[in-house]
């Protein structure tokens, strides 16, 4: 009986996924992708992975969906029809997808007994770090190097987007995010929601130490508030040559690297923390990372500079 909602959810995800792939219009398929993201986050909640669910909803559905919608708006309507893959490429894609599906199904249906797991070891040492959320412990203590590289990739992505700026406009501001028609309700929302949203974003970051939440989810919420303000035309996107903006972009990775190298002196190696200082260091790194993520995501959506610097 309790499996019934799960089956319904699985069916919905499959329908939405098929619809996303088969939609004729590009914008329709982006909307389908956002729906799949939201449904997947429900599935993660059913699997008791609230951290993953929050990330999927904020990043998979929200931020990525917004990026894709902006990309759609940027491409002209003429380019809609041009996308037709060769038959051989389609067959190859189908074969690869089938291989992945069969491999996953095999693992799920015939699991190795006992399943290889590091969970007991990870849980045993959580007390030494002083955090209560195992996901945050893995992300920022055990596998901190992965998390660090992830954030560096975000900076590289932003550099890639900025590199698309035409030479005469270099250093200028991205094009306005304003909607075609100015709208009272949107302005109202952009004035009422940010104070609440900022509190929720900071709450998610702070909460990440002991309960589900974390830098990426909180940073995305902060970015969403900033984007809302830019879309309602209450603030223009900043010029990309501004030093304050660039410092904020690299703040997170730099703090992370400094904390990592400090590990050589105060603990026993790169990215290792002394037990009694672990929690303050991790919280500091998380705060800096969240700020950088918010700025990077906002500027990624805003896109390359479209106006000459003033």
């Amino acid at each position, binding site marked *: 009986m309790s499996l019934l909602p799960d089956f319904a959810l699985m069916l919905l995800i499959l329908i939405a996924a098929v619809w996303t792939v088969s939609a004729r219009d590009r914008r329709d398929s982006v909307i389908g992708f956002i729906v799949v993201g939201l449904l997947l986050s429900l599935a993660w909640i059913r699997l008791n992975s609230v951290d993953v669910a929050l990330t999927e909803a904020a990043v998979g559905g929200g931020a990525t969906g917004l990026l894709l919608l902006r990309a759609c708006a940027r491409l002209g*309507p003429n380019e809609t029809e041009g996308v037709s893959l060769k038959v051989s490429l389609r067959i190859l894609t189908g074969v690869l997808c089938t291989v992945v599906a069969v491999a996953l199904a095999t693992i799920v249906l015939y699991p190795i007994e006992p399943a290889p797991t590091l969970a007991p070891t990870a849980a045993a040492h959580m007390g030494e770090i002083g955090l209560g959320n195992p996901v945050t412990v893995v992300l920022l203590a055990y596998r901190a190097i992965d998390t660090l590289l992830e954030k560096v990739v975000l900076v590289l992505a932003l550099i890639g987007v900025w590199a698309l700026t035409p030479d005469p406009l270099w250093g200028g501001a991205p094009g306005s995010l304003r909607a075609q*028609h100015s*709208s009272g*309700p*949107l302005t109202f*929302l952009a004035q009422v*929601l940010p104070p*609440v949203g900022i509190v929720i974003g900071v709450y998610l970051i702070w909460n990440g130490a002991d309960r589900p939440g974390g830098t990426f989810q909180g940073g995305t919420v902060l970015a969403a508030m900033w984007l809302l303000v830019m879309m309602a035309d209450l603030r223009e996107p900043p010029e990309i040559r501004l030093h304050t903006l660039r410092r904020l972009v690299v703040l997170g990775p730099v703090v992370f690297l400094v904390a990592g190298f400090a590990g050589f002196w105060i603990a026993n190696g790169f990215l290792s923390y002394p037990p009694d200082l672990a929690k303050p260091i991790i919280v500091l790194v998380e705060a800096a990372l969240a700020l950088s993520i918010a700025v990077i995501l906002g500027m990624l959506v805003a896109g390359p500079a479209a106006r000459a610097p003033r």
Partner: protein
Amino acid sequence: MSLMADTLTIAAVSAGLFFFLAGTVGLLRFPDTLTRLHALTKADNLGFGLIVLGLLPQSPDVASGLKLVVVWLLVQLAGASASQLIAQFASKGGPSA
């Protein structure tokens, strides 16, 4: 006491589900954008409001109850704003592409 709380939960959540059902039927059956939005807001406001009301007696402490109410208020704000935006877009001629 817990029997009363459970009865309230069952009654309110059932009523909320009824509004969601009615809203979905309206969304599928109504002839144009504005009436469909009207149906949708019934599900959002009343349906979700009743479900939150029904869940309140089940929340373990006051803080969780308050969080539920905040979620309801945020959904109200988001739903109302999105409906206004869609309605404005529709009244200006709908999707051009």
